[in-house]
């Protein structure tokens, strides 16, 4: 392949931009320099580690190890989803709702793509499985976090409206319908927007990477299209699952609104 390999010096030169920004922050007393440098250091360490892990995994090519890493990625994503909630469900649910819906949606979509479209040999080849999962997971995570957040804040904010309907004998599906629709919309909008802006406003990161690595633009476009459909599918299933199960958890079989299952004003 005719790609241009980077030396550590090249990367160090690029990093001077960040140092420059940090210096500006000190000069202008923005007090952002510490945060910026810590985040940059984290990025360097995390990515180097990931590079090491991926390299090892590619060489070992063990199904067990690959699925273990995949599970770990999804558990971390679950923690991130929980951290983004203004309000949280009580107990195991605060972590479990987002995590399980993501695990199901992302595993399903990734396995579907690996076994029917990309078809590496073996299909669980870490070189394909983990980067694909990573991209699908990253987007699904954003959608699920937004969807759950909107559902929980919506249920609390719309309490009088929801209970007015329940008191008039409306079933919980109807009384909750508005909040459910709003939560789904919120969770799916970023993906929809990304699809309509892609190619006009931005060249997506993966496509850029492939082009820099010497792939023909049309080939890169095909990969990008595939990934975007997978992301849209994964986000859709993930948000749908999380919002519906969340709504079911916030109500009960006697069609009551169960805000007592939310933590009081949790930050």
């Amino acid at each position, binding site marked *: 392949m005719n790609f241009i390999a980077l030396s550590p010096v090249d990367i160090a030169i690029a990093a001077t931009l960040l140092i420059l920004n940090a210096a500006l922050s000190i000069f202008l007393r923005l007090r952002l320099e510490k945060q910026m440098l810590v985040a940059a250091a984290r990025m360097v360490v995390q990515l180097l580690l990931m590079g090491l892990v991926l390299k090892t995994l590619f060489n070992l090519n063990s199904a067990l190890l690959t699925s273990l890493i995949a599970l770990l990625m999804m558990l971390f994503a679950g923690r991130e989803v929980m951290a983004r909630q203004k309000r949280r469900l009580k107990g195991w649910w605060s972590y479990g709702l987002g995590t399980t819906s993501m695990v199901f949606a992302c595993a399903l979509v990734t396995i579907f793509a690996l076994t029917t479209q990309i078809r590496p040999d073996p299909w669980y080849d870490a070189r394909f499985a983990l980067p694909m999962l990573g991209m699908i997971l990253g987007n699904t995570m954003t959608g699920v976090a937004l969807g759950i957040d909107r559902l929980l804040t919506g249920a609390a904010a719309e309490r*009088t409206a*929801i209970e*007015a309907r*329940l008191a008039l004998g409306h079933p919980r599906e109807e009384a909750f319908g508005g909040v459910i629709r709003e939560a789904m919309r919120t969770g799916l909008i970023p993906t929809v927007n990304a699809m309509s802006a892609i190619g006009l406003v931005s060249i997506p990161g993966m496509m850029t990477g492939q082009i820099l690595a010497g792939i023909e633009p049309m080939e890169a476009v095909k990969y990008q299209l595939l990934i975007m459909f997978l992301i849209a599918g994964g986000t859709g299933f993930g948000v749908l699952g999380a919002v519906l199960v969340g709504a079911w958890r916030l109500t*009960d079989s006697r069609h*009551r609104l169960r805000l007592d299952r939310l933590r009081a004003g949790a930050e």
Partner: protein
Amino acid sequence: MLVIRGLTRAGLEPFDFDLADGECVSVRGPSGGGKTTLLRAIADLDPSAGDLSLDGVAREAMPATQWRRAVCYLAAEAGWWEDRVGAHFSDVQAARELLPDLGLAEEALDWPVSRLSTGERQRLALARLLLIAPRVLLLDEPTSGLDPDSTELVEMLLRTRLESGAGILMVTHDRDQERRLATRGLRVTDGRVAGEAP
């Protein structure tokens, strides 16, 4: 008609009560004493224990939606889920006929909810409840924001319902209203419900 045995939940001590056809019982007591908790528990809006039945049918023997249409609760602060008033009524024609009895113009159905005054909201929420014709009305301060004329209209409507056999359990702070409508009273203090002479 409505028989309650040992109804209890957090903040409400076990409580027995019978409501007969055409009977109006007032509910009084200090704020935070459990009046709203009591009405919500009867309507099954909060989880509660105890045996409740309506005309001999146990609460748990019917779907919660059916129970709440028969034993219907009107919150002190009404909730709205659509922009237009009319969208909250399943039978708009029936609503049109009922509104003048509450001193409201038929056109109110075309108004946006955001334009309504407190008193209009209260009467429209009552209209919404009356139109599903519940057997038992659980009313939480239904006339607290109304002027004397509107209050009189509401009371007239409630009296008609009582005459046709409905039962009413009504939170009120108005002693005169209690005398006009109720045959007896309940007093709720610190989650304890006691009977009171009218």
